C-alpha cells in the first residue's frame, strides 16, 4: 500500500466518522465537529511548525489562542462611546509607558558599565516607571470601568468586520510570541516548555481580571458574524430561504442552523487550505530544510553558519501566529469570548496530542490528527456514558451507579492519555510519519 492510498484511506475514515455522526446523531453535531475539527487542524499546523519543523516545545498554545479571541473582541465588538477615545488612549498610553520603562531598563542594563551604579540605575528606572505607569493606567481604568458596568465597563471594540480580526489575531499572537521568544528561546527545551506554560496562564489571568479590556469574566457576547454568514433569525424570515428549506423537507430552524454552520465550514476550510499550502511550501523550501537541519543537529547547523537563535524566533512567531488566527476564528464562530473556558488541558495539551498522534513534522498528519482527536474528544463523552450505562445496567439504582454515570464524562481525558502513550510507544512517528 503506497502512501497516497494510505493517507486517502485515513482521511476517508475521518469523513466516514463525521458523516456517520450526521446519520446517527444529528447533522448539526456533525457540522459542529467538522468546524471545530477545521480550527483544531489549523492549531495543530501551527504547533507542527514549532515542534515538527524546529523541535520547539511550546506549551503556551492556550495563551496564543486566547489572544486571537481577544483580537476578535477588540476589532468587532460594539464601540463604547464613553470610553472612546480619551480613557482608552490613556489606558493604552499607560501600558506603553510600562513597556517603555522595561525597554529603558534593558537599554540601561546593556549600555551602562557593570557595577553597583548600573544595578541602582536599573532599579530606579523600574521603580519610577512602575509608579508612573500605575498612576496613568489606574486612573484610566477607573474611568472606563465606572462607565455602565452592567453592560459595558470596557474600552469596547472598533466595530469593524470580524473577518479582519483573523489576520489581526495572528499579528497579536505574533507580537506576544516575539516578546516571549526574545526572553525564553535561548533556554533548553524543557525550560521553554515551563516558561510558555506560565505565560499562557498569565495571559488567561489578564483576560479574566482586566475588566477594562474585554470585561473579564463578565464576558463579551453578541459579536457580529463574519461575512457572509447570516444570523439564523434573518434566514428564518427570508422567504427565498424558507422555500428552499421546504423543498429539501427541512424545518426552518434546523435548516437555518445547518446553513450557518455550513458557511462557517466553507470559510474555515478556505483558511485551512491557505495555511496548509503555505506550510507545505515552507516545508519543501530551502528554509524548511534548514529548519529541519537545525532541529536534527543544532551544533552542526550553527557550524554551517546558520543563525539558530534567529531561525527559532522566526518559526516560533510563525507558529504562534497560526494559533492566534485559529483562536480568532473560534471566537468569531462562538460569537463570544469567555476567558474561563480556556483550560490548558483542552487548548494546549489536546493540541499536542493531535500533533503527536497525527505525525509530528508532517503537515498532513497534523491536519488528520486535528480532525481525529477532536472527533474523539467530542464523542468519547457520550460513548463513555453509554458504555457506563451498559456496564452498570445490572447494578441496582444507588449512589455508586449514579456516581459512575456522572463521572463517565471524564473518561475522555483518560482516553487521550492512553492514546498518547500508545502512539508514543508503538508508533512514535504518528499516523502519517514525516518523510
Amino acid at each position, binding site marked *: 500500500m503506497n502512501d497516497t492510498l494510505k493517507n486517502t484511506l485515513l482521511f476517508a475514515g475521518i469523513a466516514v466518522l463525521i458523516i456517520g455522526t450526521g446519520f446517527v446523531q444529528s447533522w448539526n453535531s456533525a457540522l459542529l465537529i467538522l468546524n471545530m475539527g477545521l480550527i483544531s487542524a489549523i492549531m495543530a499546523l501551527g504547533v507542527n511548525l514549532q515542534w515538527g519543523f524546529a523541535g520547539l516545545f511550546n506549551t503556551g498554545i492556550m495563551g496564543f489562542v486566547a489572544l486571537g479571541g481577544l483580537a476578535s473582541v477588540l476589532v468587532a465588538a460594539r464601540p463604547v462611546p464613553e470610553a472612546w477615545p480619551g480613557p482608552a488612549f490613556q489606558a493604552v498610553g499607560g501600558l506603553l509607558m510600562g513597556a517603555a520603562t522595561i525597554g529603558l531598563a534593558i537599554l540601561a542594563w546593556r549600555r551602562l558599565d557593570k557595577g553597583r551604579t548600573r544595578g541602582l540605575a536599573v532599579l530606579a528606572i523600574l521603580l519610577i516607571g512602575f509608579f508612573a505607569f500605575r498612576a496613568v493606567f489606574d486612573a484610566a481604568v477607573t474611568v472606563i470601568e465606572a462607565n455602565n458596568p452592567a453592560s459595558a465597563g470596557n474600552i469596547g471594540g472598533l466595530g469593524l468586520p470580524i473577518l479582519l480580526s483573523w489576520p489581526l489575531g495572528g499579528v497579536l499572537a505574533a507580537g506576544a510570541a516575539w516578546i516571549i521568544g526574545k526572553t525564553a528561546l535561548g533556554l533548553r527545551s524543557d525550560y521553554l516548555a*515551563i516558561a510558555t506554560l*506560565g505565560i499562557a496562564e498569565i495571559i488567561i489571568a489578564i483576560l479574566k*481580571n482586566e475588566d477594562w479590556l474585554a470585561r473579564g469574566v463578565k464576558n463579551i457576547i453578541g459579536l457580529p458574524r463574519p461575512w457572509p454568514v447570516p444570523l439564523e433569525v434573518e434566514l428564518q424570515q427570508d422567504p427565498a430561504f424558507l422555500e428552499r428549506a421546504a423543498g429539501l423537507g427541512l424545518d426552518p430552524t434546523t435548516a437555518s442552523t445547518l446553513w450557518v454552520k455550513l458557511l462557517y465550514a466553507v470559510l474555515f476550510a478556505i483558511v485551512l487550505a491557505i495555511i496548509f499550502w503555505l506550510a507545505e511550501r515552507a516545508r519543501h523550501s530551502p528554509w524548511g530544510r534548514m529548519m529541519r537541519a537545525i532541529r536534527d543537529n543544532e551544533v552542526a547547523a550553527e557550524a554551517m553558519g546558520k543563525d539558530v537563535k534567529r531561525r527559532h524566533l522566526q518559526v516560533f512567531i510563525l507558529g504562534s501566529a497560526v494559533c492566534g488566527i485559529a483562536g480568532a476564528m473560534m471566537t468569531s464562530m462562538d460569537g463570544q469570548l469567555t476567558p474561563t473556558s480556556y483550560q490548558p488541558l483542552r487548548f494546549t495539551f489536546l493540541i499536542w*496530542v493531535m500533533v*503527536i498522534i497525527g505525525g509530528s513534522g508532517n503537515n498532513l498528519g497534523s491536519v488528520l490528527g486535528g480532525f481525529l482527536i477532536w472527533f474523539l474528544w467530542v464523542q468519547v463523552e457520550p460513548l463513555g456514558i453509554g458504555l457506563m450505562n451498559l456496564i452498570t445496567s445490572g447494578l441496582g439504582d444507588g449512589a455508586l451507579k449514579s456516581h459512575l454515570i456522572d463521572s463517565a464524562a471524564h473518561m475522555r481525558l*483518560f482516553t487521550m492519555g492512553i492514546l*498518547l*502513550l500508545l502512539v*508514543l510507544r508503538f508508533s512514535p512517528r504518528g499516523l502519517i510519519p514525516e518523510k
Partner: protein
Amino acid sequence: MDLLNAFVALANFVLIPGLAYGSQLALGALGVTLVYGILRFSNFAHGDTMAFGTMAVILITWWFQSIGIHLGPLPTALLALPFGIAITAAVMIFTDRTVYRFYRKKKSDPVILVMVSLGVMFIMNGVVRFIIGPDDQSFADGERFLISARTFKQMTGLQEALAIRTSTAITVVTAVLVVAVLFWFLNKTRTGKSMRAFSDNEDLALLSGINPERVVIVTWLIVAALTTIAGTLYGLDKSFKPFTYFQLLLPFFAAAIVGGLGNPVGAIAGGFVIAFSEVTVTYAWKKVATYTLPESMAPDGLLQLLSTDYKFAVSFGILLIVLLFKPTGLFQGKSV
C-alpha cells in the same frame, strides 16, 4: 506609629501564610527536582500525581471518619497519610514499569520523556476526576485553630490578631520533619548515597556497581511520599480541587528551577522564595503601612502591587529573572 501591631499584622497575613505555602511548595519542588536529578526529565504529571495521592488520602480519611476513627485535635488525614503514600507509591511504580522504563532503556531524548509524562498527566487527571470528581472537597477535621484571633487579642491586648491555624502548624512541622529525614537519607544511608552518585554521574555510578533500577524505584517511592504529603498539607491548609493541583505545577517548577534543578537544597530555598514573593507582592500593605507611617502619611489606596489573581505572574517573573541572570539557579543545579 505602632510597630508591634504592624508586626503582628505582617506576621498574620504575610509571614505565617508564606511559611506554610513555602513549605508546601518546597515539598512539591523536591519531588520535581528528584525526578529531574535521577530520571532526567521534567515531570509534567507531578501536579496530577499530587492530586491522585491527596485523593487517596481523602478517601481513606472519609472511611476512617465514617467508622469513627479520629485523631482528637489533629486532622484524621494524618492517620490516613501512610496509606495514601502506599497507594500512590504502588501507582508510581506501576507507571514506571509500564511507561517510563521503556524509554529509559532506549535512552530516549528528555523531551520525549516529557511528552510521555503529558500522557501520564492526562490519565491521572482523568482517573482523579473519575473517582472523586472535579469539585472542591473538604476533608479537614479536628481543632481548627491553635491560637484563634480572639484568644490572641485577649492574651496580648493588641488591636491586630495573630491567628495560627492547626493546618499551618502541622504543615510547617511536617515539612521540617520530612526534609530532615530526606536529607538524612540522602547523605547518610547507602541507598541515598547511591542516588546522589547516580544523579551526579550516571556512568561512573553504573561502573561502581550501583543498580540503576533500584535507584529509580527508590526515587519513585520518595517522590510518591513527598507529593502525597505536599498535596495533603495543601489540601488541609486550603482545599482540594484537582484543577488547582494541576496549576501548582507552575510554582513547583519555578521553585525547583529558581533553586537549581536537581539540587534538593535549592528546591527548598526556591519554594520559600516563590512563596514569600507571591504573598508579599499580592498582599495589600495598607494596614501595615497605616501602623508604621506617621498619621499624616497614611495611605489612601490598598498599596497592593498586584491583585491576587496574578500570583502565577509573580512566580513566573522570578523564574524569568533567575533564568536570565543565573540559568543554573541560586544553588548550583544541572543544566543539561
